[in-house]
């Protein structure tokens, strides 16, 4: 514990080419990119599945199967397949992003379609009765009502992605995982534990931020006391 503190409180570990600040920025870049791509894939897909009911079986099973995928093995396989065809940093970045996106899609997809599915049938009927088209129904009723579960899907995806982005360092990329692996290689426990504590803090901080976002974007009429909301488990353990 004291080794960790002395490593974290040493100012020289924070700046420069292999400092904490740079590694933090790299970590956020890998994670943010993957979350963005995953949201672009999973939200429209989830809205489609939830709205039409088509492909529900596939979405449920795909989500379950991807959950069982060991991310470390997937990363190495992606690297060995893609790495030979790519040059420069892309040879490491693309396989990493592929794995992170594969991890982030299932919780966002599950959150989105579950969110749309649990919309009160009476609200749907009312919207139809008011003359809304299918598109209006989706964007003005189903999407806002699905936001609580959609954002919790994004929260659990973010947790997973931030945890797994540490593995980028295994391929030689940066990110906070660097400290874990370099510390392990040089038997510097302070550095390892310091890096681990930083990843944990980052995950916690991002989760709190997204929880705050959830409060802001969700319509007040949906926040608990007035509405019945079945809870759907979209969380999954972070590797």
């Amino acid at each position: 514990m004291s080794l960790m503190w002395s490593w974290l409180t040493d100012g020289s570990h924070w700046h420069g080419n292999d400092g904490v600040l740079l590694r933090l920025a790299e970590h956020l870049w890998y994670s943010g990119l993957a979350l963005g791509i995953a949201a672009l894939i999973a939200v429209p897909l989830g809205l489609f599945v939830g709205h039409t009911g088509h492909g529900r079986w596939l979405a449920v099973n795909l989500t379950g199967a991807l959950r069982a995928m060991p991310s470390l093995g997937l990363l190495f396989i992606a690297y060995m397949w893609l790495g030979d065809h790519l040059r420069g940093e892309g040879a490491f970045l693309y396989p990493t992003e592929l794995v992170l996106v594969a991890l982030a899609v299932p919780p966002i997809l599950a959150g989105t379609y579950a969110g749309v599915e649990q919309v009160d049938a009476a609200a749907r009927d009312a919207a139809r009765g008011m003359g809304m088209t299918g598109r209006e129904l989706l964007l003005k009723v189903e999407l806002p009502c699905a936001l609580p579960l959609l954002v919790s899907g994004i929260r659990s995806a973010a947790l997973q992605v931030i945890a797994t982005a540490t593995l980028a360092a295994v391929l030689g990329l940066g990110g906070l995982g660097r400290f874990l692996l370099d510390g392990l290689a040089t038997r510097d426990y302070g550095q390892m534990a310091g890096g681990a504590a930083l990843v944990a803090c980052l995950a916690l901080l991002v989760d709190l931020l997204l929880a705050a976002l959830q409060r802001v974007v969700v319509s007040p009429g949906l926040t608990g006391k007035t509405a019945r909301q079945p809870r759907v488990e979209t969380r999954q353990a972070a590797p």
Partner: protein
Amino acid sequence: MTWLQDHWSDVFELLGQHVYLAGVPLVLGLLVAVPLGWVAQRLPRLRTPIVVGTGLLYTVPSIALFILMPSILGTGILDPVNVLVSMTIYTVALLTRTASDALEAVPESVRLSADAMGVKPLRRLFTVDLPLAVPVLAAGLRVAAVSNVSIVSVAALIGVPQLGQLFTDGFSRDFMDPLAVGVVGCLVLALVFDLVIVVLARLATPWHQGRTA
């Protein structure tokens, strides 16, 4: 796949380690989560601290937890106990809320009937509430089991042997066979854990026969 034929016994040993590291925490985690969930359900004032507290544990990335464990437990960095305790913590983090929700979902009329028949609280927990909570608990346990199998493989990076070691071996030698065997092994193991839980849940709830859990 001659590699697998040559290394069958090694792979089998790693598989055994994997079952131990992912399976034991499921049992330990369940034993901790159910009492916690029971307390959370019976004492509403404690519900939020318990559910939020265990939820926070969940945000700590596994590799960080594996590495921080030695400084908390005083173990060596290579000690498998670090992985065992970390995985138990994750299982508790996932299951406490589920356990509390599962007990909450027991119909009020059933609870009142039991009370009216003179069943004492602790006895009611074991003979009425818990059996009725089995389907929901089993659903949570399945999620925990599948993710445990996947998370344990990351422990290969800190040198604790299990199927994940095939990933690091294959990667360092640029050799696909062990990687493929490791991934398939993890997937099959996750499927087996899942099936075992489904079957146990069915056996524990004979009145659900014919319906899916």
